[in-house]
């Protein structure tokens, strides 16, 4: 018998697992695959919390601004490699080099150093997949007209076999290399060489404020890599990347490690086939293992299956359904609108809950399952793309579920 079983291993599910484990609970997380953090940039967005908290039925309105703030503080204490200031935006670079505002960022991604840069050097790793140095350069020139921008190409012995056959190197593999012992030694060398070359030129040009932009690098959660970077004489700014993203993956790995260190167990690779209920209480989930099904019993459950894209909501031409408990869904009357990147009402599809995150019937407001809490993307009445609050909703609801297990 577990104290809590969390179905879904993304940001909200893992955070709920960590919080509950910290409170001494025995927690099992069951996750169909690696979750969607691998597709995310690794930054955490909150959106306009005060405004959204005033929006009827929005998760922020249910949870309250204070609780969202508390969960942000909790996340930051848990992971000091992230930085942010409540109510103020940070800035990061998109994979194409344009700026993007967000709530909390891994320190290395914070692009504030670019604001008063006079000279920007864009590191250009040979053959990196989904990396377009000329586009990035053009964007940097446009946004930072005060600075000169140059591209600094380099190649690594480690990937010579890739270059030789013309195969692109995944950004993830570059990032993994930099985080290895050998990679740290190589990056020190590389940046010191750059510093020397700059110094030679600088004698002529006079001292100017230099910032290095380094795609395919993730220093967060690696103390030795961060130390190595702190020793170079200029700030190094990382970039977000297209999926699969090393920065999102690093956050995923870190959340998993934290959860495991606290004694939690993570079952990845299989979902929940069905559940067993007694009245308004769930007591068991059944997982399709190889050969036969395995049953796991618990006192409390969390539904963190990630909405439509996570597989938690299945949409067919005939109907939409929640895949684990068969809970009723809020479905907007109008689904889509013509403007592709504009508001799409289907984004607000999800499960309506009470203030304790328990699923409720939309008419009577009656709680449907007493010991099940719904978190993250499964909640109804919010739109991560329009409202930029995906990280905040996941952290706040995950934290609260972790408190309640």
């Amino acid at each position: 018998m577990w104290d809590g079983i969390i179905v879904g291993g993304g940001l909200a599910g893992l955070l709920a697992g960590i919080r509950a484990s910290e409170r001494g609970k025995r927690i099992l997380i069951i996750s169909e695959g690696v979750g969607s953090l691998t597709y995310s940039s690794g930054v955490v967005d909150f959106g306009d919390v005060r405004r959204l908290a005033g929006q009827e039925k929005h998760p922020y309105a249910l949870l309250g601004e204070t609780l969202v703030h508390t969960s942000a503080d909790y996340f930051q204490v848990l992971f000091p490699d992230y930085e942010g200031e409540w109510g103020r935006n940070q800035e990061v670079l998109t994979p194409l080099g344009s700026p993007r505002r967000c709530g909390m960022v891994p320190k290395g991604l914070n692009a504030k150093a670019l604001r008063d840069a006079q000279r920007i050097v864009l590191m250009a790793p040979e053959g990196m997949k989904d990396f377009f140095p000329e586009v990035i350069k053009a964007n940097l020139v446009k946004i930072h007209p005060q600075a000169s921008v140059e591209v600094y190409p380099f190649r690594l012995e480690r990937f010579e076999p890739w270059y030789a056959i013309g195969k692109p190197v995944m950004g993830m593999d570059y990032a993994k290399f930099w985080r290895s012992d050998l990679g740290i030694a190589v990056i020190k060398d590389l940046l010191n060489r750059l510093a020397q070359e700059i110094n030679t030129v600088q004698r002529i040009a006079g001292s100017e404020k230099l910032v290095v932009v380094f795609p395919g690098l993730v220093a967060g959660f690696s103390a030795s890599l961060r130390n190595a970077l702190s020793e170079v004489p200029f700030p190094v700014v990382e970039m977000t990347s297209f999926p699969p993203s090393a920065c999102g993956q690093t956050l995923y790995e870190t959340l998993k490690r934290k959860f495991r260190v606290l004694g939690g167990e993570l079952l990845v690779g299989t979902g929940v086939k069905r559940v067993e209920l007694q009245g308004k209480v769930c007591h068991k989930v059944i997982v399709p293992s190889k050969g036969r099904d395995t049953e796991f019993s618990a006192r409390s459950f969390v539904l963190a299956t990630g909405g439509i894209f996570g597989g938690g909501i299945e949409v067919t031409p005939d109907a939409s359904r929640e895949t684990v408990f068969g809970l009723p869904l809020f479905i907007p009357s109008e689904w889509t609108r013509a403007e592709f990147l504009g508001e799409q009402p289907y984004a607000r599809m999800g499960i309506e809950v009470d203030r304790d995150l328990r699923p409720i019937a939309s008419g009577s407001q009656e709680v449907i399952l007493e010991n099940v809490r719904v978190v993250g993307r499964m909640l109804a009445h919010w739109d991560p793309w329009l409202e930029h609050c995906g990280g905040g909703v996941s952290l706040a609801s995950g934290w609260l579920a972790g408190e309640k297990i």
Partner: protein
Amino acid sequence: MDFEQDRVKNLDACIKCSACTAQCPVAAVYPLFPGPKSVGPDAERFRLEGLELDSKCLNYCSNCKTCEVTCPSGVKITEMILRAREKAQQTGQKDGETIQHQFRDLVLGRAEYLGKLGTIWPSMTNAVLGISLMRSLMERTLGIGRQAPLPAYKPKFKALGAGNPATARKQVVYFPGCFVTYNDASTGKAVVKVLEHNGFDVIVPSFHCCGVPLQATGHFREERANARKNLALMDPYLQANVPVITACTSCGLALKEEYPKVEALGAERIGRQVYDLFEFLWGLHERGELREEFQEVSVSLGYHAPCHLKAQGIGTPAVRLLRLIPEVRVNDLDAGCCGLSGSFGFKQERYDLAMQIGNPLFSQVKRGVAEGDFETMTTECGGCQVQIQHGSGIKTEHPVWILMQAYGITTE
């Protein structure tokens, strides 16, 4: 369900997100392997149209199944690759594979025959295998890497009492697997002791190799023949509802995933009745039937979950169970594949690859021990044990040995 139908349906579940390739331990270190997405679901579309891929690409898949565990959409990626490999084999596509490598596959696929030979006079075999000249000869003649951590042979683990399924008290059938049978009989004895300590009569028929090494070297027909032989030995017990237990995670995965697909008596029951040792013991614990008068075992362990345990979808029952023992501390490392992947890392041209694949794990093991996080390593898989010990120099044993200490029993 019609297999062709199923195959198409499963293929469409792939949304091309590349999460599998990003996690693939082989693609990360070997550029000529296009990765699971490309040789799995991508190439499958062509295969459905009758276009076969150069099978060299397929052969670099180590069958660790990380891609299948990773996939958020449940696509059977490894299964697609293995089937394509079988097809290539049947159609005689040899992609210029040398006679030497064909012969090596013949040898490495037959852990059982090697074991039988090796255990006739184990000390002699080990002495011969220990001679570096011999290993360099093997590298040149067989293509078996000279540095590869071939496990030592030990006196053979013997079959135990036939039992009588009709008059069952509390019986279990134990499937030891080749590693225990030929290289590590004492762990086999420990498994038997732990089960006996919990009141079970343990039956060990003279099983054959489970078939995984045959499958990995492309001998699918022989693999299924082994499965049929083993099922014939198990069938009377299966019919009498006797559970089958294995402490090897690769044998366990084969028994759970491959055996039910074989046309033979017992195939319809095996999936339901086979248990990993710790899965079985945890079930006893949950029903209040496990003996839990544990002595303190003051030890701090690093735990490595074998890939083929992860693929079973049962979690990590050994970690759960060991944590019931007073003073046992377990660090679940989660540092990926050890690289050996059965016999993958024994092959001369793949030895370095296997070591590179395992490197993140080895570094984490070494760092963990150096920083005092844990003292020794534990993992269920014999291959992983050998490889972790080889790559990190840290002692690595099956978790059943901690349970033996907690029960205060020995194999004598």
